[in-house]
């Protein structure tokens, strides 16, 4: 297995909704409408022309997803909420 040395630092939109559609559906107050809006925007994201080729676009997206997380402020505002539990699946 050959290591890859390519550095990928282009912006990706994967996993993000355009706020307007979901927000509008929230205003309507319908779960179905919100899910439909999210679905539609997912499709738009999947079709977004981020790079020249699908493979490159996907590599950019995957690299973005694997990049460092944002730890936030080093000194949290007390008391920070416990937001979830991760574990082996």
């Amino acid at each position, binding site marked *: *297995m*050959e*290591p*890859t040395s390519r550095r990928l630092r282009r912006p990706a939109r*994967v*996993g*993000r*909704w355009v*706020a307007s559609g*979901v*927000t509008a559906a*929230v205003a309507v*107050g*319908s*779960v179905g409408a*919100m*899910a439909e809006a*999210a*679905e*539609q925007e*997912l*499709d738009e*994201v*999947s*079709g977004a022309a981020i790079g020249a*080729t*699908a*493979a490159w*676009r*996907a*590599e950019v*997206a*995957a*690299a*973005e*997803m*694997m*990049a*460092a*997380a*944002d*730890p*936030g*402020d*080093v000194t*949290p*505002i007390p008391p*920070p*909420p*416990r*937001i*979830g*539990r*991760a*574990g*082996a*699946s």
Partner: protein
Amino acid sequence: MRADAVRTITRPAMGAEVAVTTDASDIAVQTALTVVATLDRRWSRFRDDSKLSRINTADGPAVARPSTDRIIEVALAGRTLTDGWYDPTLGQAIAAAGYRHDHAAGWADEIDPVPGGPASVDGDTGLVHVPAGTSIDLGGIAKGWAADLGATLLADTGALHAGVAVGGDLRVRSRTRAVVEIEPPGAEFADAPILVGMRDGGVAVSGPTKRRAEDGRLHLIDPTTGRPAADPRVAVVIAASAAGAEMLATAASIAPVHAARTILERAGATAWLVERGGELTTIGTPERFLLDDGWLAEPARREWAL
């Protein structure tokens, strides 16, 4: 929209439990759960009528939109970025190992090696081609992806805090630093989770702990052999997303430790790798996240057995 108190709502999905912890409104939570359930129906390898099953059994290129072409594209790109140690085309090897249901219901006595294979996505048409003899398995990345989308949806609706865990893959979107608990691989020391603080990111844990057969055979397939990994380690990974962390954790649990280090450092992720017997390798910048090292604190706590 009025924000509610932070609470946790759980549902079964994707052969696991979905846990949503947030102050978002009830309707936003229901929407996030609906999206997760939709993706479950779409990407399950265990449903004959799922989009993924139809793609895997199609004679030629199959329509994969909406969104299925995207996750397969990213999973295949993840294979490249992990130097092949994460491989979504090992579905047949996983099935050959006996992992034919959404839980380890029984494992084959003799396991024939089944290597991964070629698969491709046409980005213009959304058509996915999985050749005969190859099968896509999105198990891990699907959980992470669903967690990412659920948490993003909640944040977009104005939640201050959103944590969505699908089968243990967790995505956090929080306006301020929030605390995440990371369970130990075994039942022991369950009362001593690692505590990390983060605002926006994903956490995944991979290892030979929960989804294993009684005889010790594992769902973690070594892509170099097409057989269950011989001696995987526990990998705890923090990355920008749950899907990314999941791909990295899977790769880091079965790759040689030097290769795992290369992959994780190149990605910029933070990770703890725990070998059988408790040896610990730390990668990245754990000091930026760690609040309490919990079960990582001493070798006796890190020890685990197959």
